[in-house]
């Protein structure tokens, strides 16, 4: 079942939460809506579910216009950020709720409900807790109960609002892997909202990055990571070093570096910024190689990498990631003056 969102707009008072957003989610796809808080991603998710009404635009679920449909008729599964489990009901009753509130004609009998609930609880590996109350569960367990409850009504699409937001780092990583396996198993069209880029890249087939109510970029995780379309995406999807300079006549200049930049066709120079990820920079003791001179102030081991923190002559911080092997050979130490050269620069003209 596919989801299509066309020209959605939503304003709260004077605040434009969603500004003309369109995208499609293919059947069986797992898509992440990624963005900082307040970028409109949760509002968009709630509009797809029917919990919020858009000011204009359409939502199509498997090709059918669902814009005027009530939440109850849309057949979506929704997992709330804080789970929203019914606190006075056991795990079993929580999962069974969606089945027991059906009109008598469509309601499965008791034995069938019980069988389906236990099957779902086995799927989320919580069957042994079926008679517990939500308050007796850990965060990760609550999250999985919420998921089982959403799946119990056999939704056409699954929507998850910050599914791992309230969990600590270890549980989050486990649950993420588990959810990816689950998605591969049941292939349910899913959209999840997150502000954590690592989570989005790790889990999603496609990432939609939002900022101030608009889509900045929509693409596969590797596309978004390697070819960011805007400075915002560049900044948002990881650590980045920014060099200010100018661009003119097919060349861009940032301090000592000059690189080809065919997009600058004018001969008049315009302000530009060059971005390089920490691993896209090299350092050398050779100060005459045309690099940017900077003083090494800090060396931090970070797993397979070593992170160098440098200050250039204008006191701007530059972060460089080196393979640990290289650092073992070179033995850079704090206080040294080094030359920094980018292996690759992503350039954007400044507005």
């Amino acid at each position: 079942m596919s989801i299509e969102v066309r020209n959605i707009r939503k304003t709260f008072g004077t605040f434009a939460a969603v500004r003309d957003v369109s995208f499609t989610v293919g059947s069986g796809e797992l898509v992440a809506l990624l963005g900082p808080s307040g970028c409109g991603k949760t509002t968009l998710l709630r509009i797809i579910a029917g919990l919020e009404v858009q000011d204009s635009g359409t939502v199509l679920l498997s090709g059918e216009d669902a814009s005027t449909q009530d939440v109850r008729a849309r057949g979506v599964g929704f997992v709330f950020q804080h789970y929203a489990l019914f606190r006075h009901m056991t795990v079993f009753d929580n999962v069974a709720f969606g089945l027991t509130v059906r009109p008598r004609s469509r309601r499965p009998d008791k034995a069938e409900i019980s069988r389906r609930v236990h099957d779902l609880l086995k799927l989320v590996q919580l069957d042994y807790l079926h008679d517990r109350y939500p308050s007796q569960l850990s965060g990760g367990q609550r999250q999985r109960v919420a998921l089982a409850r959403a799946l119990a009504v056999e939704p056409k699409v699954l929507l998850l609002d910050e599914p791992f937001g309230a969990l600590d780092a270890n549980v989050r990583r486990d649950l993420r892997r588990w959810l990816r396996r689950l998605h591969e198993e049941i292939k349910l069209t899913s959209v999840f909202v997150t502000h954590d880029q690592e989570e989005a890249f790790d889990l999603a087939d496609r990432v939609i990055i939002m900022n101030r109510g608009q889509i900045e970029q929509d693409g596969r995780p590797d596309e978004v990571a390697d070819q960011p379309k805007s400075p915002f995406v560049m900044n948002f999807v990881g650590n980045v070093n920014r060099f200010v300079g100018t661009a003119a006549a097919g060349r861009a200049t940032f301090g000592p570096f000059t690189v080809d930049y065919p997009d600058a066709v004018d001969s008049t120079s315009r302000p530009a910024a060059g971005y390089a990820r920490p691993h896209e920079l090299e350092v050398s003791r050779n100060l005459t190689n045309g690099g940017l001179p900077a003083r090494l102030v800090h060396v931090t081991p970070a797993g397979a990498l070593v992170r160098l923190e440098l200050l250039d002559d204008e006191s701007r911080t530059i972060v460089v990631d080196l393979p640990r092997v290289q650092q073992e050979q070179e033995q850079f130490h704090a206080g040294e003056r080094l030359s920094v050269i980018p292996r690759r620069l992503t350039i954007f003209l400044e507005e």
Partner: protein
Amino acid sequence: MAGSSSRNHRTSGAAAHLTEPRWVRWGLIALTLGFLGLFLIVPLAAVFTEALGRGWSAYTGAISTPDTLSAVRLTLVAAGVAVPLNLVFGVAAGWAIAKFQFPGKNVLLTLIDLPFAVSPVIAGLIFVLLFGRQGWFGPWLAEHGIRIVFSVPGIILATIFVSFPFVAREIIPVMQAMGRDEEEAARVLGANGLQTFLRVTLPNIKWGLLYGVLLCNARAMGEFGAVSVVSGKIRGETNTLPLHVEILYNEYQFQAAFAAASLLALLAIVTLVLKTIVERHVGRTTVQPGTATDTLS
């Protein structure tokens, strides 16, 4: 070690060096108990000694006079109408205030407290002013032969007025704390409005609701001021139990007055016991037991 020992003592108060000197503690306790004794226990005991002073048969005799029975009946009727109405009003107001954003919300919140702020006598006078013979609607009511003031409807109106904040006041914080998440979850899962209310909202607010109803009922049955203004004190007709006590007392029928008063005192004691039970439940539902460990293979 210091940490664990102070934790062990938590049930019997904080560690000794963290609390006030012994004489302060005992002084405060003695003061509180003395005050309670003087102003609550002694009067309560006095009511029952006076009431039972001439023996059990005199007591039952005083209670079972037609006028007393009629007063009891009227009190029950007034509370029986006022409490359910205020229950509905309280839930509606609580729902509106806790779950929706609308202009004038704060004004509504303040207005709900009005009966707490206004003297009950004024409340009674308002109804006389509206429905009395010289009141705004007086002539119209007289034309149609409807009596409100100095009659049962007036008493019920006054009772509703003075007791209406209780349910709403108890329910609003409970509903605000509950938020809208669970109800939204229920709707996404396909529950209709009634199912959502009965199966999700009500179970979450029931103890708060019950607590509000108890307080509302106690006030409805015990109200004197507002009811005394609109009642006209026609014996056997428009006398509620609190008014009846006063009349008997003014007629120097002390034993009968105290017998009737003992019924109100009993109501207060029953309310307190129920209140304690309800409070225990309210506490229990908000307690979060320790969380289990997470296992995920």
